[in-house]
């Protein structure tokens, strides 16, 4: 039974949320953790409590680390509510929840948002064809159900996850037809000055090189610096084409998994009215935070990848720091104790983040690709708005995302703009000579998760006739 008020509510059960809940509950605070998944672990440690030893082996050592985190959380005394979606969060910390088909409202003194990341949606010709999926979805099927592609797969895009998935598939016996890397060659140069600092967190580099070595040994065809990626097919995917070394090439395949890095899932911080800034390095919006993860709205904190991409380890540390701040705000820790307890995590987090500038430069997606150059490419799949329609709206003088949304309905569909917001920003920026920061972000409108009329009608049961 969910109460109507908690001193601390945590949203999300990935590394940040789990670590935060364990710290806060350990200090005797009543903590409720709401998780839209059915079991703790978030995306990164999905299925960690139920996975077989064999699949855990296939998923690697980084994955198995989640087990410890979940065990600590389970014994911490924090209350865990799985399959529970947050559909509203107001600046006054009123939280709308949906659980087992029933909506309810509650309040909290402190709210920690730990909603994680989402894959960066990058529209390209044919991306909406059945048979084209996000690599993340492929990984979820693997982690949660052991489902892998039966008839081969082409992987395309950029970022560590793509490499990791290729490696995981390799070990699960999946035929990886090709790995198409869209990161431009120039990234290698621009990332180079950031390499020395990255060596301070070289675990990541050695891990990446280890994956690459295995892929090479297995003779997986890896093509670098590819551009003009396209998916082809009538009713579903039949082939993939791209430009490589000046030539257009084509691969027959029934499955294309794409990945263009991850960006913070900012729906909740946006809907709560927190200030956000455009991060040009990470090519995404992120909430403006202080050193403790406190947002611009009092009592609302954010930690982990939803606050800026830092990876699972950094998320754990950030979660603990935010928990300490929440305990401080609740009067449970004085300033000196908070700072003392934070010292270790703060140091580890800094060390862990050394790798980020290098990774951001190395895996950076080219502006040309983000700006969706082909006019016919659908940008908003809910409302079927093309890149050309957005450019036309910009040419008419609609130079911010919200105006383009009003005019074209781009972002007004059931996904609430999650799929198109980024692309719209890049397209308008390019068309108007502005920065993405100046084009602004869609104003996030609740419910951030769909709610039916019946669920809303029964929200305050005492008022129903």
């Amino acid at each position, binding site marked *: 039974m969910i109460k109507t008020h908690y001193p601390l509510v945590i949203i999300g059960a990935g590394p940040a949320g789990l670590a935060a809940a364990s710290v806060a509950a350990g200090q005797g605070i009543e903590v409720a953790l709401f998780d839209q998944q059915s079991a703790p672990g978030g995306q990164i440690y999905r299925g960690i409590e139920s996975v077989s030893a064999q699949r855990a082996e296939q998923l690697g050592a980084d994955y198995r680390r989640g087990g410890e985190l979940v065990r600590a959380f389970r014994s911490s005394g924090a209350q865990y509510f799985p399959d529970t979606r947050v559909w509203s969060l107001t600046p006054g910390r009123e939280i709308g929840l949906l659980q087992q088909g029933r909506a309810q409202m509650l309040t909290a003194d402190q709210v920690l948002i730990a909603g994680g990341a989402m894959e960066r949606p990058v529209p390209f010709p044919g991306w909406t064809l059945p048979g084209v999926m996000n690599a993340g979805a492929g990984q979820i099927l693997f982690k949660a159900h052991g489902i892998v592609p039966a008839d081969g797969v082409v992987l395309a895009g950029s970022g560590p996850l793509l490499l990791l998935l290729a490696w995981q598939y390799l070990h699960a016996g999946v035929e990886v037809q090709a790995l198409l890397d869209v990161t431009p060659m120039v990234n290698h140069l621009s990332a180079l000055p950031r390499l020395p600092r990255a060596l301070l967190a070289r675990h990541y580099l050695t891990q990446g090189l280890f994956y690459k070595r295995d892929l090479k040994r297995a003779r997986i065809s890896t093509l670098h610096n590819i551009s003009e990626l396209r998916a082809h097919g009538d009713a579903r995917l039949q082939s993939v084409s791209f430009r490589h070394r000046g030539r257009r090439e084509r691969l027959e395949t029934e499955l294309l998994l794409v990945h263009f890095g991850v960006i913070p899932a900012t729906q909740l911080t946006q809907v709560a009215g927190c200030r956000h800034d455009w991060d040009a390095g990470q090519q995404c919006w992120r909430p403006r935070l202080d050193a403790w993860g406190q947002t611009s709205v009092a009592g609302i904190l954010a930690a982990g990848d939803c606050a800026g991409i830092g990876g699972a380890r950094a998320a754990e540390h950030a979660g603990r720091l935010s928990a300490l701040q929440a305990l401080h705000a609740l009067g449970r820790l004085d300033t000196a104790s908070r700072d003392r307890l934070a010292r270790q995590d703060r140091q580890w987090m800094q060390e862990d983040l050394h790798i980020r500038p290098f990774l951001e430069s190395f895996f950076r997606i080219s502006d040309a690709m983000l700006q969706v150059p082909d006019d016919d490419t659908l940008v908003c799949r809910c409302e079927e708005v093309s890149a050309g329609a957005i450019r036309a709206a910009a040419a008419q003088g609609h130079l911010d995302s919200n105006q383009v949304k*009003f005019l074209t309905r781009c972002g007004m569909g059931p996904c609430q703009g999650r799929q198109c917001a980024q692309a719209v920003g890049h397209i308008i920026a390019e068309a108007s000579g502005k920065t993405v920061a100046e084009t602004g972000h869609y104003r996030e409108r609740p419910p951030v998760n769909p709610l039916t009329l*019946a669920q809303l009608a029964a929200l305050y049961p005492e008022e129903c006739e």
Partner: protein
Amino acid sequence: MKADVVIVGGGLMGFSTALHLALRGSRCVVLEKDTPGRHASGVNAGGLRQLNRHPAEIPLAVVAAEAWHHIRELVDSDCDARFPGQVRVAENAADMEKLEQRAALVQSLGYRHEELIGRDELYRLVPALAPHCVGALICRGDGYARPFHALTAFRTKACSLGVHYQHSTRVERVEQGGGDWRVESTRGEFQAPVLVNCAGAWANAIAAMLGEPVPLTPGAPMMMVTERLPHFIDPVVGAASRKLSFKQMHNGTLLIGGAHLARLDLQRESTEMNWRKLAVSARTVLALFPQLLDVRIVRTWAGVEAFMPDHIPVIGPSSTAPGVFHAFGFSAHGFQLSPVVGRILAELILDGHSELPVAPFSIQRFAA
């Protein structure tokens, strides 16, 4: 910059006024503190409703309806206007009596656009309605348009006639000097013998600069939109004794309003949904359309609007400042009136009087 008329507020009223003045040869400047139609003008329900108007507004609404039916002639766009009619349903005998009295009032004023219909005609027009309703008041020529499209059409047409529009321009001070109004803004100074206040929820700040503050209350009526459904209803539906505006848009989504207000922070220009009130809206919809139980709400929002205590707008000359005209306080039902309000202001400014009865909208009704 010098002009004939400076208009404060880049919403529908501001651009309609600029458009009508430009059509008659005036050089206008429109100043908007944000982006065009940022608040009420861009995000309202888009109702084109003559039905159940305040008696003082009826003559204006009837002329405006005519304008909407030919809106392409004015702004080169149909603004996505559609005219499936609007109905106000009676759910019991008491409701029906209320509607009968209303119909009699409208007839006594000499108008025929509101028509009483019985149960059979109601269910012929709205078969999807819950079976308990007994009749309705209908205006068959009513309908709706898409507000941001209308705003864009008015703005584009006005600018094509030479209107100078400037966004991100907040008016900071207004002074009279040498027969002109000098308007100081965050982006330059503007001068004109005539100043028009179409600043919506912020109009009182302008009126106060001119020494005639009014009892204006800013408010943000909440709206909801659902996922797309197969087409099942044509007219816009309201109810005699419930707060409701309900329509299915051409793309299949349902647009639900009910004049319930969001919590508003005018300083930050932000709104916060009042879920308790939205739950009332949802119950109202389900009382009239119980088959919609499992329809998903996709989005809710609220646009900031100016409300007057008597729920009719201020339209007309200033009582203190010569050369100043007001058009604000439409109390959440201004969208339909916008073509006629621009025409009235152009007449008042250029001819000294309007052919339409505007006396009830005088700002002087609030003089102490």
